[in-house]
């Protein structure tokens, strides 16, 4: 045990003193979180709408002010033609058209007449169904509120917004567990590099000439990976919570459990790489080749539903899919792709199989 502790500490010191390794394992995921956070924080809750005021009255201006103050939108004024080209360029998510004659109708209503209703047009993009639906709801809400207020009736029913998150997590909440999963995956598969380095430099051989048991050698490497995993998790979650407003809804215990299981599984995959890579260069190459399909063929950056069938069947084999799924469920209450026990079982299965391969093929010298 004394040797295990001392060797873990030695490996940790080596890691911390290796600035490049430190940067890639700690700074990189943080940069990733912040980058994705800023991208999705803008797009998740806020919609860009073009506001086409064909009426030009004080009433229309008041409506605009009330709308902007109460709905999660940012309005850009322009003519209908200008707005259409903006939407085609992707600068705005939809167009609201306030028709000419709006103020006349409202004035008439105030005067006690019953004019024909006038239509507020909402242009959305049906190919972006979520956004389209949200904008239509926002516009409908606006119009209903205006109707109520204009008719002078006090509201009898109101809606209290509450959340039972299912599929529609906001972007950041979806991505933070994904980035954590990705960081754990990289941490694990990159475990192959120091291992191969230590073998190439004959450090493993030298250790093998001491009575140090092999389980202590493996144990210390795994212990270091777990410590780094804990630091990464704390950093990524901390930034997610503090800067990006991610709400962690789950128990800490299952989250910690999946972080550990994930780190172990991917470290074991790192050992498999180290079993077949003879040189550090080879280990670097194999690690890159392995991590990209792991990353992009798993459901961590795209919901699995949007992938084509063949890709989805590949993704259902990837361990990262299950780690991402489990972390989303346990951290932010994401909709399950699989029940948690299945996630745990698949990750555990990968762990056992890769451990077996390493035990068979890993060479100390």
């Amino acid at each position, binding site marked *: 045990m*004394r*040797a295990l*502790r*001392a*060797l873990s500490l*030695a490996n940790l*010191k*080596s890691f911390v*003193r*290796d600035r490049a390794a430190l940067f890639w394992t700690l700074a990189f995921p943080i940069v990733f979180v912040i980058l994705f956070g800023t991208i999705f924080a803008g797009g998740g809750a806020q919609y860009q709408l073009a506001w086409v005021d064909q009426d030009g009255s004080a009433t229309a201006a008041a409506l605009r002010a009330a709308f902007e103050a109460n709905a999660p939108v940012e309005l850009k004024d322009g003519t209908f033609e200008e707005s259409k080209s903006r939407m085609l360029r992707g600068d705005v998510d939809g167009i609201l058209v306030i028709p000419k004659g709006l103020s006349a109708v409202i004035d008439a209503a105030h005067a006690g007449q019953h004019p024909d209703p006038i239509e507020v047009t909402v242009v959305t993009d049906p190919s972006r169904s979520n956004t389209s639906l949200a904008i239509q709801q926002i516009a409908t809400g606006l119009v209903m509120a205006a109707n109520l207020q204009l008719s002078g009736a006090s509201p009898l029913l109101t809606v209290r917004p509450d959340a039972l998150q299912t599929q529609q997590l906001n972007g950041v909440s979806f991505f933070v567990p994904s980035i954590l999963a990705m960081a754990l995956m990289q941490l694990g598969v990159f475990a192959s590099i120091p291992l191969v380095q230590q073998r190439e*430099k*004959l*450090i493993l*051989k*030298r*250790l*093998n*000439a*001491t*009575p*140090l*048991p092999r389980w202590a050698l493996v144990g210390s490497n795994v212990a270091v990976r777990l410590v780094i995993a804990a630091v990464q998790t704390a950093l990524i979650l901390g930034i997610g919570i503090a800067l990006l407003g991610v709400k962690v809804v789950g128990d800490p215990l299952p989250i910690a459990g999946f972080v550990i299981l994930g780190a172990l599984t991917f470290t074991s995959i790192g050992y498999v790489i180290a079993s077949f890579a003879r040189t550090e260069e080879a280990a670097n190459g194999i690690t890159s080749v392995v991590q990209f399909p792991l990353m992009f063929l798993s459901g961590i950056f795209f919901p699995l539903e949007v992938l084509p069938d063949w890709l989805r069947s590949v993704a259902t084999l990837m361990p990262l899919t299950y780690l991402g799924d489990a972390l989303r469920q346990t951290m932010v209450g994401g909709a399950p792709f699989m029940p948690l026990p299945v996630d745990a079982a698949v990750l555990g299965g990968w762990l056992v199989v890769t451990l077996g391969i390493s035990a068979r093929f890993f060479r100390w*010298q």
Partner: protein
Amino acid sequence: MLGRPGQDAVITVDDVFKAYGDVKAVDGVSFQVSKGEIFGLLGPNGAGKTTTMEMIEGLHAPDSGAIHVLGMDVRHAATAIKNRVGVQLQTAALYPQLTVTELLSLFGTFYARHQPVERLLEDLELGEKRNAQTKNLSGGQRQRLSVALALVNDPEVVFLDEPTTGLDPAARQGLWTVVRRLKGEGRTILMTTHYMEEAEALCDRLAIMDHGRILDSGTAEELIGRRFRERGVHFRRAGAPDQEKLQALPAVSRVVYEEDEVVLFTSDVPATIAALLELTSRAGTEPADLMIRRASLEDVFLELTGRALRD
């Protein structure tokens, strides 16, 4: 050539074979090392010295044959043996980012018993570099650290694989002093080298290896004496007596003229020298720079293999 394991044999290697593919790295090697001696495996690179040593250290399993260290079979008691021996590998294998002190303390935790780090730093003259990361050490310092690591557990047997390769003469002398002190402390040392002078200076007994086999073994004296009974009497050529007179001196087999020296090969050094001095004193002179040389291990290796042993 070799007797049965004696009472005081610390290492016994018995008819060991090891092949890598078609290459017979070790091809039937047997020898034994007695307690407290320095035993050297001498031979060129690729002779099988390191493979032999690493099988004794338990790093490779022999294809056949038996190896015992401290009375224990390496196949069955590897951990017990590793606790009592110290190993220095040919290439210093160190954690580059750890300091000298950290590395020595770390290795201390691997063993049932260990020496104080301070003592190791002092013995190997590493005190000044105690807080230096190992990647910043010079070649000589790395080598001393590598030897210090082999001594962490206060071992009874020390394995040194080419301990002075790549060192400058001063650093080499320093390591020789260390090795002699280890012997003085009662430790048994098995070392490999391809340096003649090193083998002659340090080793009590030697085995000369080539192509995975031991060609001959014994003390340097024995190895040379078995082949070269004659010695050379050297003196300056200027003012030397005539060749016929020298050839006629007792026990002289031949007279050879080198650049500025005359060499008399003789089977009886005292008789030859006495007669030589008598000859020169009659002429009122004496032989200048008189020296007696025996054949060297280099000559033995040349005789055994037909090749010179050079690095």
